[in-house]
């Protein structure tokens, strides 16, 4: 694996302490939907997801659209109650009353959405947007104190000089500046966990890096536990420590990022990595890649009626009989790596 000589942003942080800050254990979420004719069906959005976020570490959750990434983020943020399984904050199971968590939960867990244009109240200035969480969660009172805290927040997300931004309306800011305000607002409550649901996808390419570096700083300097959700494996590799790959609502592979990307153990991870643009790829590899018969690769399945057995089997070049009937169990591969694939289960039994 490539050893990073220059301290890259995602140099391994402190060793993971035992209790994760936020943990999902075998979490499942089903949504009941009604079709136009009134027939009920169940969307199996997330199935048996297990994930642990540690202080000062970044976990990237990658997958295609419809793989359940966002549903999992919303479960972790307390917007949905899991159908089964549990979510634990610092070892304590989170309880929900009438589908809602207590306000105190949001003091520890904050989420940043993809669209910075939709997540700020357009009728209020930056100042108001940042003061609300300070008042609600910390009871900060007094003009001078509020001003000081707002200024600090803007400085932390590098919106300086702060007086240029504090009285602006969201529409007066660029996409990158808005997303910084959104992050500042999340930081206002001094959370322990920050969930980023594709936080850079809607930003211009040249300013994405600044946002990733900002998230990295929050992780190293403030020890936040970060979940970084993305479909862009290259940016996940840049920021995170561990990668978890989701496919059709299930987690299929996870482990330290370099190993997972350089040597994927699940056929879907391999497909995903090979499909990702990589300008560093040699010209010959490139020609081979585009020449390869890509027609047979298929598409992700419907989550209303997912394939039996392993959900990837209809697209998998290695599919065996067992894959069609039984869901593969999780196989630990050592060094914190694991995969849910019968290929590995078989090799372990043979040994």
């Amino acid at each position: 694996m490539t050893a990073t000589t220059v301290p890259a942003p995602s140099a391994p942080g402190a060793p993971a302490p035992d209790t994760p800050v936020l943990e999902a254990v075998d979490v499942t979420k089903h949504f009941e939907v009604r079709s136009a004719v009134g027939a009920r069906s169940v969307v199996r959005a997330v199935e048996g997801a297990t994930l642990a976020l540690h202080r000062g570490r970044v976990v990237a959750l990658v997958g295609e659209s419809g793989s359940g990434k966002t549903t999992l983020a919303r479960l972790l943020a307390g917007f949905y109650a899991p159908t089964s399984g549990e979510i634990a904050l610092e070892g304590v199971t989170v309880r929900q009353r009438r589908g809602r968590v207590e306000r105190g939960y949001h003091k520890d867990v904050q989420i940043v959405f993809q669209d910075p244009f939709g997540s700020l109240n357009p009728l209020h200035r930056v100042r108001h947007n940042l003061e609300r969480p300070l008042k609600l969660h910390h009871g900060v009172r007094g003009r001078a104190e509020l001003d000081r805290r707002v200024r600090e927040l803007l400085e932390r997300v590098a919106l300086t000089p702060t007086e240029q931004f504090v009285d602006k309306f969201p529409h007066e800011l660029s996409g990158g500046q808005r997303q910084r305000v959104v992050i500042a607002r999340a930081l206002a409550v001094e959370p322990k966990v920050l969930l980023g649901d594709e936080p850079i996808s809607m930003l211009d390419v040249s300013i994405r890096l600044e946002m990733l570096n900002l998230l990295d700083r929050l992780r190293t300097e403030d020890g936040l536990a970060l979940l970084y959700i993305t479909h862009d494996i290259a940016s996940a590799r840049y920021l995170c420590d561990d990668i978890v790959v989701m496919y059709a609502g299930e987690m299929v592979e996870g482990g330290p990022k370099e190993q997972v990307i350089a040597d994927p153990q699940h056929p879907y991870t391999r497909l995903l990595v090979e499909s990702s643009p990589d300008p560093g790829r040699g010209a010959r590899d490139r020609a081979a890649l585009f020449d390869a018969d890509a027609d047979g690769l298929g598409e992700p399945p419907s989550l209303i009626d997912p394939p039996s057995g392993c959900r990837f089997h209809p697209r998998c070049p290695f599919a065996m009989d067992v894959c069609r009937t039984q869901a593969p169990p999780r196989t630990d591969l050592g060094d914190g790596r694991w995969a849910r694939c019968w290929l590995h289960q078989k090799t372990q039994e043979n040994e």
Partner: protein
Amino acid sequence: MVTQIMSDTDHDDAGTTAARGADGDVLRVTGLTVEYVTDGDPVRACADVTFTLRRGEILGVAGESGSGKSTLITALTRLQRPPAVTTAGSIVFQPRDGGAAVDLVTASPRALRALRWTSLSIVLQSAMDALNPVMRLGAQFADALRTHDRSLGNDAAWARAAELLATVGISGDRARSYPHELSGGMRQRASIALALACGPELVVMDEPTTAVDVVMQRQILAQVLRLRRTLGFAVVFVTHDLSLLLELADRIAIMYAGRIVELGTASELYDDPRHPYTRGLRDSFPPLRAPLRRLTGIPGTPPDLRRPPSGCPFHPRCAARFEGCDTHLPELVTKGGHAVACRLHDPTQRPQPAPGTSTGGAR
């Protein structure tokens, strides 16, 4: 009225080989300027854009939002609507069969209609908007096919539609489907098949894979490349994803604030980007396999075209700027097929420390 263009155009077009190899070029864009007319000063979204497109070539156009790439596309295809107005320049289309060259800027609606689909077609970002939601796919194909070939019967047109769908990996019986019955990736592939229905020489693609996932993106692009090999059409491929273009395109034009700031082959732009913006853009994509290092992106934000910066539009964000960048607008100068609009590469203007050290030190 078709505007006749003299074959010996004497445009001083910065560095394109257009004047010589008219045979090999399908499109010659010269000095194209598009403005949005507003109450105040007109906003210049495309300024003095000059490039040529060779037959069968994939030309990538990369830029951030507001760089003028979509404006360029709508001007090329004459799909622009007020307040966008082409105020200067020409877009000369040279048909393959040696017919008269047509200036798309001045062509009449009638002449344009004759060109659309058969010579020039477009693939849009959102296939759902490009396909008619209340028509079966086959009917949409038949509609386009029969408009351009009056002798084609309805059954033959439907059969051809099934064939065309098969070329993009959709089974022919899906011709009876409505667009909403297809997945996003299939819709996008169907709209590519539709664009190719009448055998165009030039296909303009506006972010055709931005709305689909990476696996589907790879499939779609593999199919486009394969079809190009058999059908020989040229592509103008517009996207914000430079990393994708570096793998896909033959040549790439980088746009910034409505101007082409650099144009060269994919390997030239990756190995030796000359414009500081191109370099910054290239270094904004973390590598998938190469060793990681800290990347900084490009500080600042893209300019507001209502109030463009003086001189070089990139100078407020440029780490390699020097005296005069804020007043002098660099021209696109070609050296060995690689064009760049930056004063660092203009020997008469650059300052004493060699450009290699100043750009190299910037990153």
